[in-house]
């Protein structure tokens, strides 16, 4: 090779340093000196010496031959009895707080040349921030789980009410969710006149967009009832056919959305990053807090409607027994339409919130649909409050799975589905379901 290798150049330079060190030091004639330099480079700054680091040198046989501490210049000159190969080791306990040796670099081998000594440089890095202990993450995990559960709950209450009143497992419910989020995302693009992200202006713009999105979801759900489900019921077409029809509708609508909205997930135009605000041990963004409260209010309103109002009583009557309900003078068809409209609005609202938590994509509804089915099955098919209980269980389970098995976090939805199957094994009617013998 025409040029000395890089390693050789380094060695020559190091040897030169050692040479200087040798003559500036007060070494015994036969002894050799190893100059150890410990430095730290702050991010974007110059190298700084690190003082007070304990060092030890062992020879090839592993016997301790020298010990020392770095001075104010970050340098320690240690005397070794002969030339040859030595190992310089940093005592990591002596490092100043916040500094660390890169993994595996605590010690290095130095070749000491007779008459020239040896040289070792240590470059420290910033210590990795102390990993938060698992337990300290638990309150936040539970908070997230409940929040996610509430979001699933507002989506799946509609699914559950529809099942209870008509007996239909509506596979197009996921697309109602998607429509709510996608139309909000589209409308949010119209409203960004100021161009400012976040803040109260963004909040108002996004709220206005949300009204449009939720309106579209409501209209979609209601229109399906009027145009498809009601005529099918009149013709006496059975539930399984209707379920397959809902799969067909879901597929058609999903790919219409993909065709015209695009395959790329997007955020709302007003979306910006936010600082956490701390509530006790839980750091939460104002956004997450607001959406959590909105979800809670929506659920409370649904609960009030179902328990206290005449419409709610009628809905519960129809879910218990449609024929009996209509003989008592309840307009069953109207109640069913109400349920579709209400369910659509809630699904749309859930979609808007879900689009804030993640991103708005063409298949977000399909992805969450199975979680919704798991929630209402867990809670007990056809029990409106079962949907709430089941959703909270699913939300908590998903987040706790990710917390517990952090290296298998990608399987967290799998965990929720598995839990649903296991619950069905031991309590087939679900958590709140009525026990009935089928077979």
């Amino acid at each position, binding site marked *: 090779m025409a040029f000395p290798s890089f390693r050789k150049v380094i060695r020559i330079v190091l040897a030169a340093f050692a040479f200087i060190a040798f003559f500036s030091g007060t070494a015994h004639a036969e002894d050799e000196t190893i100059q150890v330099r410990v430095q730290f480079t702050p991010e974007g700054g110059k190298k700084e010496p690190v003082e007070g680091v304990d060092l030890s040198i062992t020879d090839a046989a592993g016997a301790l031959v020298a010990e020392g501490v770095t001075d104010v210049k970050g340098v320690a000159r240690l005397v070794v009895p002969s030339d040859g190969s030595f190992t310089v080791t940093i005592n990591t306990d002596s490092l100043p707080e916040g500094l660390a040796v890169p993994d595996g670099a605590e010690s290095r081998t130095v070749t000491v040349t007779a008459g020239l000594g040896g040289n070792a440089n240590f470059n420290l890095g910033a210590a990795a921030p102390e990993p938060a202990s698992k337990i300290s993450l638990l309150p936040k995990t539970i908070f997230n789980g409940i929040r996610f559960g509430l979001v699933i709950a507002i989506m799946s209450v509609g699914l559950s009410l529809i099942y209870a009143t008509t007996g239909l*497992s509506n596979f197009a419910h996921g697309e109602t969710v998607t429509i709510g989020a996608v139309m909000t995302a589209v409308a949010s693009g119209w409203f960004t006149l100021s161009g400012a992200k976040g803040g109260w202006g963004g909040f108002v713009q996004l709220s206005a967009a949300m009204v449009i999105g939720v309106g579209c979801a409501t209209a979609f759900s209601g229109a399906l009832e009027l145009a*498809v489900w009601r005529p*099918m019921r009149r013709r006496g*077409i*059975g*539930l*399984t*056919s209707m*379920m*397959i*029809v809902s*799969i*067909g*509708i*879901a*597929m*058609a*609508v*999903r*790919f*219409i959305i*993909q*065709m*015209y909205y695009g395959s790329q997930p997007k955020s709302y135009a007003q979306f910006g990053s936010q600082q956490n605000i701390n509530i006790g041990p839980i750091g939460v963004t104002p956004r997450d807090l607001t959406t959590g409260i909105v979800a809670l209010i929506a659920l409370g309103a649904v609960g009030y409607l179902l328990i206290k109002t005449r419409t709610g009583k009628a809905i519960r009557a129809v879910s218990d027994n449609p024929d009996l309900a209509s003989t008592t003078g309840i307009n069953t068809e109207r109640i069913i339409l109400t349920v579709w409209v209400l369910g659509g609005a809630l699904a749309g609202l859930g979609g808007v919130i879900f689009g804030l938590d993640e991103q708005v994509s063409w298949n977000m509804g*399909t992805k969450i649909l*199975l979680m919704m*089915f*798991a929630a209402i*099955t867990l809670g007990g*098919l056809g029990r409106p409050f079962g949907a709430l209980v089941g959703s909270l269980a699913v939300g908590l389970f998903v987040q706790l799975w990710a917390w517990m098995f952090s*290296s*298998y976090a*990608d*399987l967290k*939805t*799998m965990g929720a*589905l*598995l839990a*649903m*199957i296991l619950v*069905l*094994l031991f309590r*087939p009617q679900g958590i709140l379901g009525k026990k009935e013998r*089928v*077979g």
Partner: protein
Amino acid sequence: MSQTISNGLFGAIGITAIAYCLAAIGLNVHFGYTGLLNFGQAGFALVGGYAVAMPVMNWQWSIWATIPVVIVASSIFALLLGIPTLRLRSDYLAIVTIAAAEILRLLVSTPKLVNVTGATDGINSFTDDIQNTIPAFLKGKTVPLWEKQISDYEMWVIILGWLLVTLFSVGVWSLMRSPWGRVLRSIREDEDAARSLGKNVFAYKMTSLVLGGVIGGFGGAILVIGQRNASPGSFQTQFTFLTYAIIVLGGVGKVKGPIVGAMIFWFMINVSDNLLADWTDGSGFQLPTWIMDSSNFSFFRWILVGTGLVLLVIFRPQGIFGDKREQAFDVR
């Protein structure tokens, strides 16, 4: 145009059609004859596909030795699904099967298992045994299908696949004419009546689930062999829904339903794809770009499938060959 028709014909007899046809034969046993709402046929196909690919890849088995693995693995999956759900209302079976299929898909997708399942990229190069057994009359030749050239490997898989379809169709046909098949149909029509006659409904449903599941498993096996790749992307929930579309199209509860359905389905998919590609490629007749362009026309086929499924179920629920008096819809 002749190119489009040739591609359509290839779609009708090709590997995908065979795989979906087998899955549909299995689903027809579940849904068409027994009235089981199995929404997890993708899971059975996945089990079958990976039962072929994994032993060859991980333990250097001969691919032919994996045939019993397909049968055993699909049967076990059916038992696991059936035990918790077959005593419950049919909705529960639907939810649990769709969930179980997703569980399997997520499990084989996880990067942690990349050495066993190949994660999202899946498993490749497990088909040497198929390649090596191509018979001499095919070896190195391409088979023309009008304007479409079929490679020797594809043709060999197509032959094997249609043999399987024939085998299972004849099997299902004779089984359904047997007393056993009549009990299945009586369960579909009225489960309580069958039970009151002393039939063990649970056991009949379970055998039906296992039988249809194994056939679906072979569908997945043919799919991964034909694609020379076993990856989770082939076994999404969509797989099950397309299988439903196929049996509704061909006629639920009919032996020829899945065959006719799969052939017509994939013929139409390929023809419409070719036509739309032709109408958006910038020359000759063009669709307005606000309707679709070359970047998004490929999604249109699924819109067609979805709409077609809706119209079929509402206006011609018996499909093309079904008998309106005997249709499996409206199981409870």
